[in-house]
């Protein structure tokens, strides 16, 4: 099996910057946490769930991070913990509770939906086939693919973030790659 790239992509390494180091150093302000981890959280949430409700998931993740920041027990790296919170937030959102809450808030006009891109956020999807294949992956496979392949986490880090053994991450990764390949081939045959 092909081993995952262990080196983070260049842009994904932004978290190593001063802001993250400062945010991890001690008592922090919410803005410092946001500045340090916003790109990481946004990227991860984007690959996990696409454009739909991306802003809601990002905001909810930061609220959770802020509330439990002092409760972090240091069993893993802070960055790994941030991934865990992001995954959990996305999972609970897509289980429906968060989605319902977001829809209800929008209904009450408390949080007007923000359209980041003209024509709606779906217009941001330049590669529809790729996005569709990603969406059709099992959620756990998509998490493994996102953390290891796209965010450049090691298998151990991804396992810690996902709360599963390394072997499970490996097998999910393998399944994710095979399935992506199959889905994209299927799409190619369907649209020559």
């Amino acid at each position: 099996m092909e081993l995952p790239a262990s080196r983070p992509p260049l842009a994904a390494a932004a978290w190593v910057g001063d802001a993250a180091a400062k945010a991890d150093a001690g008592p922090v302000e919410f803005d410092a946490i946001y500045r340090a981890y916003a790109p990481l959280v946004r990227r991860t949430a984007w690959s996990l769930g696409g454009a739909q409700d991306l802003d809601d998931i990002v905001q909810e993740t930061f609220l959770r991070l802020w509330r439990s920041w002092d409760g972090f027990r240091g069993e893993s790296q802070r960055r790994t913990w941030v991934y865990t919170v992001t995954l959990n937030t996305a999972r609970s959102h897509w289980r429906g509770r968060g989605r319902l809450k977001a829809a209800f808030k929008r209904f009450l006009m408390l949080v007007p939906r923000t359209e980041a891109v003209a024509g709606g956020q779906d217009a941001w999807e330049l590669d529809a086939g790729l996005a569709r294949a990603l969406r059709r992956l099992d959620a756990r496979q998509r998490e493994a693919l996102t953390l290891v392949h796209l965010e450049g986490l090691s298998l151990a880090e991804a396992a810690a973030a996902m709360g599963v053994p390394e072997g499970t991450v490996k097998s999910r990764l393998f399944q994710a790659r095979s399935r992506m390949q199959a889905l994209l081939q299927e799409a190619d045959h369907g649209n020559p």
Partner: protein
Amino acid sequence: METHDWKERLKERHLAPPPAPVGELQAMHGRLGRPGNRLMGPVWTFGGALALAGLAAILWLPGLRADRAAQSDREFAAVDRWVYQQWNGVQSGTKAEDRAEEPGSGLLAVLDAD
């Protein structure tokens, strides 16, 4: 789409998510409330618990009082039955368990007789 480059394309997509909406940080500040709001969590939790306890008391207390009244009635009826049996026994010379029960008239009958 060529399948062999899907990983690269996926990385490109991953690294270019839709931009954060303008004012996202301010929006989150709004959701956080005023500074020091981490103290407000327990306050809201305590207040909520207190409100629930009050509501439960309002709903539960009348029922409890009704239960106690019913229990008191039952106790009175039992005493009443016992007095009736005893009084009737003294009068007729039969055993208490053989005598018919006429609850509701025993104690009053005794009192009236007195």
